[in-house]
């Protein structure tokens, strides 16, 4: 289980969750707030998992001067330098947090070793907006909602999460500024997509694989948007392999089967 701590950054105080020992893994959470999912619990068995609570989420206050996704990326960079204590870290960003993570890798490449994305927002180039299920963001996040039942925040915190998400610009199918940066990011990137995802459309993973020099996509079967909840074991297998071996994770190994 994780501990909750407070960091003092240039922009103000930021709370964060931390668990485990080993190589650090910075987690950038979804617009659903800082949820300690089954995947993070598994990763914390092997790594030091650190998840800053992005300002406004999880019952925290917004911070002055942190008003956009780009600002969040810069805040994450400050967090790495101030809290993590390693020159470079692996980063895992999910959905909205995936968009933040991509800006982080683009703007602060020296701080990021490898990058794992789960259904990242803002990069579904070529997707038809009508293909996005308008109800999915509320009711279709999980193929197995019962697995997420124990993670749900209180109604007040959920309201705060939604307000913060709106303050940072809300849902974005294609973030043109970010898309233009993708070819410049040299980091090894693994994008995880659920085969049942109706929130982040399939074009997102396809575009990462096509546009980023070291981008790859892996589909996790029988998972919706919240892959780390729907299929935690399957996602852990591939993410652990990737984080340990980098680009060589495509070479099969019983150790990671």
């Amino acid at each position, binding site marked *: 289980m994780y501990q909750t701590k407070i960091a003092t950054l240039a922009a103000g105080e930021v709370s964060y969750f931390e668990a485990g020992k080993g190589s650090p893994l910075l987690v950038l959470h979804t617009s659903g707030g800082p949820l300690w999912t089954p995947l993070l619990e598994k990763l914390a068995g092997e790594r030091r998992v650190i998840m800053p609570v992005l300002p406004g989420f999880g019952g925290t206050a917004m911070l002055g001067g942190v008003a956009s996704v780009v600002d969040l990326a810069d805040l994450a960079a400050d967090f790495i330098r101030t809290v993590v204590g390693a020159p470079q870290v692996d980063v895992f960003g999910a959905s909205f947090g995936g968009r933040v993570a991509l800006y982080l890798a683009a703007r602060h490449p020296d701080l990021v070793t*490898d990058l794992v994305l789960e259904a990242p927002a803002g990069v579904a180039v070529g997707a038809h907006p009508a293909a996005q299920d308008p109800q999915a963001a509320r009711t279709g996040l999980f193929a197995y909602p019962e697995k997420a039942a124990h993670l749900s925040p209180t109604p007040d915190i959920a309201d705060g999460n939604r307000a913060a998400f709106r303050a940072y610009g809300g849902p974005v199918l294609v973030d043109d500024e970010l898309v233009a940066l993708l070819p410049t990011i040299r980091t090894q990137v693994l994008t995880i997509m659920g085969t049942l995802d109706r929130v982040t459309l399939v074009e997102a993973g396809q575009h990462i694989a*096509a546009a980023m*020099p*070291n981008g790859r996509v892996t589909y996790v079967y029988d998972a919706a948007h919240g892959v780390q909840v729907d299929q935690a074991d399957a996602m852990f297998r591939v993410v652990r392999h990737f984080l*340990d*071996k*980098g*680009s*060589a*994770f*495509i*070479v*099969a*190994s*019983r150790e990671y089967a």
Partner: protein
Amino acid sequence: MKFGFFNLMPWPHYPEPPRTYPTPNRDYDPQVGRQLYHDYIDLLVHAEACGFDMALCNEHHFSPYGTMANCNLIGSILARETRTITLGMVGNLLPLSNPVRVAEEYAMIDVMSGGRLIAGFMRGVPHEYVAYNSPPGESRSRQKEAAELILKCWQEPEPFGWEGEHYQFRSISIWPRPIQSPPRVLMSASNEESAVFAAQSRAIMAMGLISDMKLARANVDTYRRTANDHGWDPLDEEIMMGASTCICETDEEAHEVFASALDYFHGTLMKPTYDALKLVLQAGYFNKQQAGASYDSRLDKVAAKKTIQQMIDAGSIFCGSPESVVQQIKRFKHELGCGGINMSMQIGNLPIATVRKGMDLFRDRVLPHVRDL
């Protein structure tokens, strides 16, 4: 001396060296590919009329240098389109396949062709394991177990079960069973361990991508010695050497067109394969944090650029006028004691018309001088 015609079925139109493994297939045009398959199959059929003893098919995955993902599909066509030529499937990559399926498909080709199959029991090269998500460290043991199981599939008269390290089947009885009892088996013998295994298995030994004639000779000696230790004496024709081959009217023409085709082959088509090979080494020997330049440098020599003459001297290729190629083949016979030569003639972006012309030159001006070696 026996001769085989080998066709990689390459994609000759890739625009630039792919940046990653595996090569994205967006630049493959299926309509162009359709015509290529027909033209390539025509060449394999033409091999019979040119006096080749074997038409040879191969299996590669996720690779523009060879678009034959399943050699048995082409082999089944050749079983109908040819009448006498031996059909060498060189072959199914056993570590990646269901051995019972391999036994069935090979048996089908053998039956349809009237017993003309040579069954390759290949182990594959590292990028194939990556493609099919098979642990490289298990490739040898998988090949060995699969080879034994396939032979059982062909020879057991009654349904049987198999409980192995890698494969488990409760009851097997394949239909059809092959005409040959059993089909002749061919194995790669490109290193000492492989040569020993081929001899222990009483298989035809095959070597390709020779880079040093002395090392090749050492493998032949290992194969013969191991065979003798196991109570048999291989025929010369059971020792097969493979080499990329280009035959033109003159040495100058052959050197020029082959240099260009091989540049494209190594620099563009094979680049992702070399990248995958590095990943396999990286996965096996280094953690991500430790991986530096050291493993790269050991592999760079694989793709090191050599002149056509250097490649001829090394035994890597046959290239030149018919008269020059006759001399190069005689040298192979003299130095390696082989009785079979597999010529990989459709390679890189060599024009199909050039390959066909080379086959005709082989028939008219090479074969008469080397058939009785």
